[in-house]
């Protein structure tokens, strides 16, 4: 089975632990049987008055000693098998993470974060339980049954045979119960999540609920769902609640059966080799050891089944292949790039939808290109091609004359600084965020598939940050004053446990982050939309010091942003409809000129508003 064989390399890495653990399970299960033997002997000695006080002390001490042994072995089992399962849990999580860092944009566009998180939490737990509990319990059940029956047969093969007849019935019944419990439990959980989903829906849609005055209907619906939950829970408790009592009943019945038969043997009223009370006691006490393993069989099945289907889901992530990666066509000798961009008849399709259509474009190193157009016109797609987040459906993207697909990804991206539309900042300090891509060379990657036993923890990577460079980048991005106002300056934590920046501040942090890399190609995707015009002007003048040295692609809507570009491209529905300098496009009197006129009017309206404010 593919699922099995794909799990094997992980198990193989911890084979020694599993082997030692399983051996210990076996020995522990043998040691546990010494206790009943000692008690049986003691009873015989007491019944037939052959015991001495000193002998009794000896037996009592022997009893404690065997438990020390079996307890010690059980401890060993947990520290081998359970530990191995938790180490594999770590290894699988590590390997999936490593694989995720290689997957391309198209994967993350399709996958939902929630789903990936569920796999990495719930599914991984299920696999871990299978690797720990199932492995151990399979070994446990087998050895308990085997060793116990050896002892039972040794005491009285007739009684043992009797047990062998009733036992399978009990196992079948308990197995059936365990399966039923699992099925019904899943049903309860399903209803629980439905109820949570309902609550979520109601609370987030409370405006509509109140607006349409349907509170009563909502309450009624919620209560119906809760009624169903009660029904399902009671359905579950009918099989789960009495499980303990049922087990006790079954073991009681088994005890009575051997009491009737064994009692007859002791008293010599039934045919067969007579036995002593001590042997009978040993028999009864040994029999008790079987109760847990009988319960466990059903559980093992449930956990293993769940574990495998979870493993299947994890395997999908673990085996997912990146769409964009280095191939045999990649030329590793390419190191230095100037930034001459060329798009030769490039089209991008998403299914039926044509995001870019037959684009031709040449950009010389050091040029600044402005790009504008309505939403969905393909601006972002265009710059994503250059950063090779996506590949063209047809045509070629060239950098310094090399097809992008022949340039090593790392090398390409080393030369690019990109500020996306909605920049993503990490829950680190401001300085760490700005220095995010600095230092060029990356830490060597973590190798997947290696046992944690043979891989020492990585040295915490050098967090030394070139603060001068960070400050310089922040200065150009117009962020320096904002940082000075933060509680801990550059060391202020951002995100969940820290400060929340405004949209404009986030954009400028992302800009500083891109600038700090000294990129040869700088891509700004509407990265100043949340910044006011005044700050924008400041940033632009700062950027001018950089602009000469690198190729800049600047997506924007504000004419004030675009006008300084060497060339402005106007996109519409994936097509390049106008291009030229600010003056050329104004003279053309097309869409760009229209945009310019509207913005001029808007700013006059703003000024008027301010003026009226002064009056009122």
């Amino acid at each position, binding site marked *: 089975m593919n699922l099995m064989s794909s799990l094997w390399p992980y198990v193989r890495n911890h084979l020694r632990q599993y082997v030692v653990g399983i051996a210990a399970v076996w020995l522990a299960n043998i040691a546990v049987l010494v206790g009943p033997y000692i008690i049986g002997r*003691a009873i015989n000695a*007491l*019944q037939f008055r052959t015991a001495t*006080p000193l002998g009794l002390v000896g037996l009592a001490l022997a*009893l*404690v000693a065997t*438990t020390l042994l079996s*307890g010690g072995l*059980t401890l060993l089992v947990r520290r081998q098998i359970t530990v191995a399962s*938790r180490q594999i849990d*770590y290894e699988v*999580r590590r390997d999936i*993470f490593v694989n*995720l*860092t*290689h997957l391309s944009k198209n994967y*993350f566009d399709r996958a939902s974060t929630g789903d990936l998180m*569920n796999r990495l*939490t719930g599914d991984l737990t299920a696999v871990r339980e299978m690797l720990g509990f199932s492995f151990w319990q399979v070994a446990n059940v087998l050895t308990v049954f085997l060793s116990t029956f050896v002892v039972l047969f040794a005491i009285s093969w007739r009684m043992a045979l009797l047990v062998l007849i009733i036992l399978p019935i009990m196992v079948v019944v308990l197995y059936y119960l365990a399966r039923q419990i699992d099925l019904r439990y899943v049903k309860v959980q399903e209803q629980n999540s439905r*109820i949570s*989903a309902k*609550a979520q829906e*109601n*609370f987030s*849609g409370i*405006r*509509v609920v*109140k607006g*349409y005055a349907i*509170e009563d209907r909502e*309450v009624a619906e*919620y209560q119906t769902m*809760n009624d169903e939950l*009660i029904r399902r*829970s009671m359905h579950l408790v009918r099989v789960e*609640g*009495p499980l303990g*009592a049922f087990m006790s*009943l079954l073991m009681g019945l088994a005890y*009575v059966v051997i*009491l009737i038969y064994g*009692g007859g043997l*002791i008293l010599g*009223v039934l045919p067969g080799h007579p036995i002593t*009370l001590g042997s009978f006691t040993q028999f009864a006490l040994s029999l008790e050891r079987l109760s847990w393993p009988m319960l466990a069989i059903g559980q093992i099945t449930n956990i293993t089944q769940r574990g495998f289907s979870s493993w299947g889901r994890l395997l999908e992530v673990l085996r997912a292949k990146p769409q964009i990666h280095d191939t045999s066509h990649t030329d590793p000798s390419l190191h230095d790039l100037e930034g001459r961009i060329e798009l030769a008849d490039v089209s991008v399709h998403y299914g039926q939808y044509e995001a870019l259509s037959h684009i031709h474009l040449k950009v010389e190193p050091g040029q600044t290109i402005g790009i504008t157009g*309505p939403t969905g016109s393909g601006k972002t797609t265009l710059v994503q091609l250059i950063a090779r*987040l996506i590949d063209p459906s047809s045509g070629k993207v060239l950098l310094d004359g090399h097809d992008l697909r022949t340039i090593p990804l790392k090398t390409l991206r080393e030369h690019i600084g990109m500020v996306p539309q909605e920049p*993503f900042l990490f*829950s680190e300090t401001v300085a760490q965020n700005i220095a995010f891509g600095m230092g*060029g060379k*990356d*830490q060597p*990657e973590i190798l997947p598939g290696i046992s944690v036993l043979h891989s020492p*923890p990585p040295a915490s*990577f050098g967090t030394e940050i070139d603060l001068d460079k960070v400050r310089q980048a922040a200065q150009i991005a117009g962020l320096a004053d904002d940082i000075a106002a933060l509680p801990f300056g550059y060391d202020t934590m951002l*995100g969940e446990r820290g400060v929340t920046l405004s949209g404009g501040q986030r954009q400028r942090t992302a800009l500083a982050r891109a600038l700090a890399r000294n990129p040869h190609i700088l891509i700004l995707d509407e990265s100043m939309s949340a910044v006011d015009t005044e700050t924008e002007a400041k940033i632009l003048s700062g950027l001018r010091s950089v602009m000469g040295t690198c190729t800049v692609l600047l997506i924007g809507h504000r004419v004030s942003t675009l006008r300084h570009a060497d060339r402005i491209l106007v996109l519409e529905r994936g097509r390049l409809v106008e291009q030229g300098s600010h003056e050329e496009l104004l003279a053309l009197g097309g*869409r760009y000129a229209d945009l310019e006129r*509207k913005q001029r*009017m808007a700013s006059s*309206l703003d000024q008027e508003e301010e003026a009226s404010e002064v009056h009122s």
Partner: protein
Amino acid sequence: MTQLRPDDVFSKSFDWSLTKRVFGYLKPYRWIVTVTLIAALLIAALQPLFGLIQRAAIDRYLAPVGKVTLSNQQLYHGLLGLALLFVVLKGAEFIVRFAFSYSLEWIGQKLLYDIRSDIFGKLQRLHLAFFDRTPVGRLITRVTSDVDAINNFITNGLSSLVTSLFLIAAYATIMLSLNWRLALLSFTVLPVLYLSTTYFRNRLRDSYRETRLKQAVVNSQLNENITGMMTIQLFNREGRNQVKFDLVNRALMAAMLSTTKWFSLFLPTVQLLAQIATALVLWYAGEGILRGNGVTLGTLFAFIGWIGQLFQPIQDIANVFNNLQAAMASSERIFGVLDTEELVRDPEQPVPLESFRGQVDFEGVWFSYDPEVGPDTPERDPRWTLRGIDLHIQPGESVALVGATGAGKTSVISLLSRFYDVQRGAVKVDGTDVRSYRQRDLRKRIGVVLQDVFIFAGTIESNLRLGNAEIPLERLVQICKYVGAHDFIMQLEDGYQTEVHERGAMLSTGQKQLLAFARALVQNPDILLVLDEATSNVDTETELQIQDALAKVMHGRTSLVIAHRLSTIEHCDRIVVMRKGKVLEQGNHQDLLARGGYYAKLYHLQYESGALVGD
């Protein structure tokens, strides 16, 4: 998903008033509670009997004490009698234990149901401002894990406390009465058991907590890395972030291994203690048998069984306090919600309401979302959202509200539905203050069309009806045809019975909007409020359909529309231009254009055709 919640921090240990309130929920079920208690008592009373039977079997028949007068055959018959009794009692025990766990679960479920209903019902009555302030996630926690914690405390904690005490009493009684010396000797292990169980439970609780904490760190890093993966790749950070993640992943593993460490010590320790107790009994009772001072083999056998069975209740009691702490913290939070004051309330004697003519009057309305702002707050305070709005709308008139973001358009609409109460002035419908009506009467007669339609999980039909079962399906279809939603509904897999839900991307924005109009018409309101959001990703055909539908629903009704489309505005009888919480100018489209004021400029800027309108 495991998340780091303040719930993990137990502040309260025990609070009597909270406990009393939780117990209040048990009151309606006091008979079942009584039954459960009786069952618990019976279980406790039955349990030691099995040892007694085994003792009798040994002492009377298998290894008879003293002079034997019966034949082996007679002895065996006696044994069979005891075996029968054993089976009968086991059967009885099974029935009682079944009854116990069944009724306990029943109580737990009812409790869950009642507390949940209370919270959910309370939340339906609470004012909208409460929801503006409280994140949805926190409310979900109240109706899920907090309620579970209380349920867990009652069905696991409290019940095992009671049954454990019963059991301990029963075993102690029988053991002491049979042989108090032997009993006391075997009890010496129990305090050690209690202490070591408490010790290990605390260690385990700490390492579970540590594991949860580390899991939360791992999860938040995972979440962040998955969301920001493109940034990581663009900045060549794969290696460094792998290392960073590896460190927290290892920390999680270490925390889990520490749990394993304590657990692997815990169970063998308990086993060892149990065996020490057995050894003590064996030694002491054995000596007694040898000396012949009345101790029998049966007593020895029974004691070995009983002392082992005493272990479980002792361990359970040691565990009760963990449950208790969690339940206290949860009930405190739950009652916090239940005790929140409802700020928008129905009047004692509401004005009866059949339908509205549709006259709407805003009279000197001052409003702020800030709860601190009162009627006496000075007018220049920046927290005012509406500053003295006077607006009078005649029955059947349609009014478009126009203005920049933050002008107060949405507030005007929210006040008419009485989502909030005004601080000064009054909002009147048909000449009566909205605060004099029952909220639901008022809102039943006022239809709201939010164009970002909220879809409830259910069918298209149930989303149109919104619980009103009286409307015939033909009418629904008729309305959908009228607004132009019928065609696309019929193209769905199951037509009107197609299952939809909020997160389902099955319906396009335009389709959702048409559905919203249909929904409003189905309710047949007297006054219509429309939030007409600007939508960019709708194709021209749908756009025309929406415009058409809007005109249809507004027809003949008092309508108040927050307008973004020129076509919408042109359909309205009157245009009200708002700015910074005040009415700036009003009139019809032509008049306002002719005046050349703020509206005229706004119009030229936003509504004149052009492909490059900023998005």
